[in-house]
């Protein structure tokens, strides 16, 4: 079959779940030397959600998955493939997707994790899209889920990073698109590993013997916590976000003026604002909810998509662009005709 004749994939249903506990900027000022003004001014974040004790990424994923399955009218038993994007897995191994499968009470279909950080959802979307287009799967569940709160340094030492992240999960169900010209038009995935150290968690590390030790856990360097070169990441993000949206549009013979809504990974409100300005998109054509959730990495795009749908900001026939940038560096975009 020629590429143009392939049946496209579409998003059949979306769902999200965030844990009930909200943590305000004021709450964080009780833990570390920071200020509400600094957090809002630099990131746009006003609050985030954190899990309570002993909740993992797959637990949040399960709630989001149930909602997406219901929205899609799909039974878990009918899924052909489970994909879970996370950088905060429940356990070392097996993959969190396995825990999600058990939570859903199904078995048999393959379950695997996509470990692409902030671009995890869009890398997963490209995988699911390919499975549906090739006919290898008819129903794919893709979830992005993170529990960051158990991996952050809430002392003053970690304040630049700890204030950014939140916990949450978002899910989509993918299936074949019946309507010509609709569905997932294209996906675009990129990486540039030379910048891996600019945003990373260096331990545990299989290249260290032993992989994890007392110093990694309790040492001054805080090696289990994320390290971010903030200004560097910020600058690359603005460039790459803009570039990959333009790449996706150009690949389909479209321009930014055709775009109904851009849903960027919720990395930082200031990044999204600069990307919008660069693409000459007005504020109502760029979705932002980072104010209430912080950066939920692999979960942010499906959470935002679900909220955009709920707010009536996506209509049939709309051209929607999903885009991401983050650790790796990795960045990606997907263009959809809703």
């Amino acid at each position, binding site marked *: 079959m020629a590429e143009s004749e392939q049946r496209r994939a579409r998003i059949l249903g979306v769902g999200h779940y965030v844990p009930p506990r909200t943590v305000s900027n004021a709450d964080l000022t009780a833990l570390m030397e920071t200020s509400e003004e600094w957090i809002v001014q630099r990131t746009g974040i006003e609050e985030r959600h954190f899990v309570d004790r002993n909740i993992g990424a797959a637990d949040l994923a399960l709630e989001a998955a149930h909602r997406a399955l219901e929205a899609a009218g799909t039974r878990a038993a009918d899924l052909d493939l489970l994909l879970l994007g996370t950088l905060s897995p429940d356990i070392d191994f097996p993959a969190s997707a396995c825990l999600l499968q058990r939570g859903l009470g199904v078995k048999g279909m*393959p379950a695997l994790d996509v470990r692409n950080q902030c671009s995890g959802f869009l890398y997963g979307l490209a995988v699911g899209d390919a499975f549906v287009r090739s006919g290898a799967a008819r129903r794919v569940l893709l979830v992005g889920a993170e529990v960051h709160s158990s991996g952050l340094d809430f002392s003053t030492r970690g304040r630049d990073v700890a204030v950014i992240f939140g916990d949450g999960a978002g899910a989509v169900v993918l299936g074949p698109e019946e309507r010509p010209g609709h569905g997932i038009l294209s996906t675009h*995935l990129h990486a540039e590993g030379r910048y891996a150290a600019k945003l990373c968690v260096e331990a545990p590390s299989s290249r260290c013997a032993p992989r994890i030790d007392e110093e990694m856990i309790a040492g001054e360097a805080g090696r289990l916590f994320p390290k971010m070169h903030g200004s560097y990441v910020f600058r690359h993000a603005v460039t790459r976000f803009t570039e990959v949206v333009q790449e996706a549009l150009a690949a389909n013979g479209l321009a930014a003026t055709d775009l109904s809504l851009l849903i960027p990974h919720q990395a930082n409100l200031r990044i999204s604002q600069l990307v919008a300005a660069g693409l000459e998109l007005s504020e109502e054509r760029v979705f932002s909810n980072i104010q209430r959730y912080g950066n939920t990495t692999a979960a942010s795009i499906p959470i935002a998509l679900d909220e955009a749908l709920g707010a009536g900001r996506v209509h049939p026939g709309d051209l929607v662009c999903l885009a991401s940038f983050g650790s790796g560096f990795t960045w990606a975009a997907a263009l959809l005709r809703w």
Partner: protein
Amino acid sequence: MPPTTILGLGHRLPSWVVTNEELAARCGLGADAMRSPVGQRYYAEPGIGPSDLAVEAAHMALGRAKLEAQDIDFLLFATMTPDVAFPGSGCYLQDKLGLGTVGALDIRAQCLGFIFGLGVAEQFVRTGTYHRVLLATAEVHSTGLDFSPKGAPVSRYFGDGAAAAILSSADGDRGVLATVLHTDASEYERFWCEYPSSRQHPIRITLEDLAAERHYTRIDLDGLNRLAARLLREVIDETLARAGCRQGDVAHYFLHYVDPGVAREVAATLGIGRDRATATAERTGHIASASLPIALSQAWSAGAVRAGDLVCLAGVGAGINWGAAVIRL
């Protein structure tokens, strides 16, 4: 849609060979205490991560395919022992190969990393999304093993290594005829490692967890072996049926499970002679995602398989994941 074929395959085993006697001594056991179905294993030198081993495997695969790194338009990395917590090892390999801004996907499918990765790469190639995909698999298990007398029964199985395959559209009748992927996580704790764990609050691993050795792999081999044997047999049948082949059509079987004795037993049960079956963990230990492609690459180097041969790769491991691929080389 055209099928997907392996244009080139390469592997890399570290030069540090660890015999059963050496491992016994390291674990504080007498030389005769290390009865093991694994003959020997290879350990990476300190400071070497999966992406370092994968670079060498990738160069070998590129050489065999007569391609340059610049010909690759997508990278897929499967490992369960990543270089760092994040980003994924694919990002490091992408940089080490000089792949510019080519996408680098990391997947986590444990011991089935190669078969699951092949299943993913196949869809990208068949749909024309990407044209030349580098599928890298690599593990450095040795830095995460328990080298105490208590840990020896598990640690003796594990080894380090990497393999890489370059996948593209097939011409003629070569290529991947069928891939079958399965997960049943209902008893995933039979083969797992719990820590670090994002569900542990306020922090994913503490000094107490470390002292309690919650960061080591646990395997219930007694409970798992019989299940593994059944799943291997079933998935071989299922994949052959999907490929439209009979058991006798296959020139060589590569069977992977942490205990090679179980893989041998499966081959015997199916009536596959020793000359037509490789129990991958026998000579290199359990290298999880990389075990099957290392064995295939070694067989290719040795002339035990050649272009035109039909091969079957099947494995079962943590997840529980199991699967198989039938490929016309």
